[in-house]
């Protein structure tokens, strides 16, 4: 039976294991790294089979689901179970690594422009990635996200303790001919501070990271400016409130 049990990875990845055997195999997965790895790969493979039969649900389902969301309470992030040999500290570290990996993925597939304004300490892409990881692993990292009436999406990742903000955009059309997009940080008082100019990729995505002190900025915005950028924003197309 023990030699046999490794052969169940395929059946498990397809949910083709009867309930009583599933529990036994899941115990085995905790002890057998080879099977655990194979199951992850085969589940990813099975998901491709699922994706291949995509079919739009009836449009009214969306409103029904969105209406229910407000009533459903969300689970907290990690389970700090004391029974785990690893202990709560490493669980937390693992989760942060996961978060960082996810947003790094955003950055690395976006084909967008990453604009870095810094004190010269970021000199290659690996260091840029490291800066993103540091931002995402900050204790006080916060996310805000919004959609403009014209359908552009913006997501800001902010850490006050690190003085960093990263702006990710999606669905952004190319700037009009002879114009450019410019990102800004705005405080309650004083002039908006330019973060720099950028151009979204063909899919309308861009990632902008400013590693300068964000100071008391409470808004991040994007405007359309003459090529080369301006001293002050003219046509603001997106503005988001930053978390305090």
């Amino acid at each position, binding site marked *: 039976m023990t030699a046999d049990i490794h052969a169940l990875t*395929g059946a498990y990845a397809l*949910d083709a294991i009867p309930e009583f055997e599933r529990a036994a195999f899941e115990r085995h997965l905790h002890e057998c790294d080879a099977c655990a790895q194979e199951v992850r790969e085969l589940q990813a493979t099975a998901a491709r089979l*699922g994706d291949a039969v*995509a079919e739009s649900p009836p449009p009214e389902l969306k409103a029904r689901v*969105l209406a229910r969301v407000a009533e459903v309470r*969300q689970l907290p*992030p990690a389970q700090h179970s004391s029974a785990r040999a690893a202990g709560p500290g490493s669980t937390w570290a693992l989760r942060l690594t996961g978060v960082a990996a996810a947003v790094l993925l*955003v950055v690395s597939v976006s084909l967008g422009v*990453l604009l870095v304004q810094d004190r010269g300490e970021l000199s290659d892409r690996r260091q840029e990635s490291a800066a993103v990881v540091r931002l995402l692993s900050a204790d006080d990292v916060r996310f805000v996200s919004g959609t403009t009436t014209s359908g552009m999406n913006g997501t800001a990742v902010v850490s006050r303790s690190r003085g960093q903000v990263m702006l990710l955009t999606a669905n952004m059309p190319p700037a009009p001919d002879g114009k450019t997009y410019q990102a800004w940080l705005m405080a309650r008082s004083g002039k908006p501070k330019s973060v720099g100019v950028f151009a979204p990729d063909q899919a309308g995505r861009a990632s902008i990271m400013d590693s300068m002190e964000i100071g008391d900025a409470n808004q991040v915005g994007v405007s359309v400016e003459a090529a080369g950028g301006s001293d002050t924003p003219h046509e603001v197309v997106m503005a988001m409130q930053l978390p305090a």
Partner: protein
Amino acid sequence: MAERVRRIAGGAEGVRPPDAEALLLLVARGDEGAFERLYDLVSGPVFGLVRRIVRDPAQSEEVTQEVLLELWRTAARFAPDRGSAMTWVLTLAHRRAVDRVRSAQAATDREDRAYRRDADRPFDEVAEQVSTRLEHEQVRRCLSSLTDLQRESVELAYYRGLTYREVAELLDTPLGTIKTRLRDGLIRLRDCLGVAR
């Protein structure tokens, strides 16, 4: 203070739809706007897969709704280092759909129904219904590269929610053989599709 503009090379993956992983992170923080965008991204694959298994349209909608609300509820448990968001979503959807059809089957007539469901649908129906959209063409091609027994076993298990025991009875093949075919069939698909190791 130097200001530099950089272009990040994204490789050939540029056509990927935006970032279910990033949306899940936002959803985990209670962002309903991000959930709506996640809905737009995953509801088609979820509904298509659930419907393939559950068949009945009204029940398929119910299960799809359950799955999407489960995503909202458990978004914080998504671990990106263990697989992509779409894999996580579709693994959950498949599990829920299978739970629905298995609980609907009384234990006594399970095999009987498996036969009847089979009689309703010839083997190659699923392969034919696989969308011909360009990115799905590869899935179709890879499925057809399997041996008949591998393909039939994988399709019966995945698209109809049968257990390997039911597959073995249906195909009149020993249990051990079916277990092996499910595994080596998926491994061949994995390699054909270039799923990351």
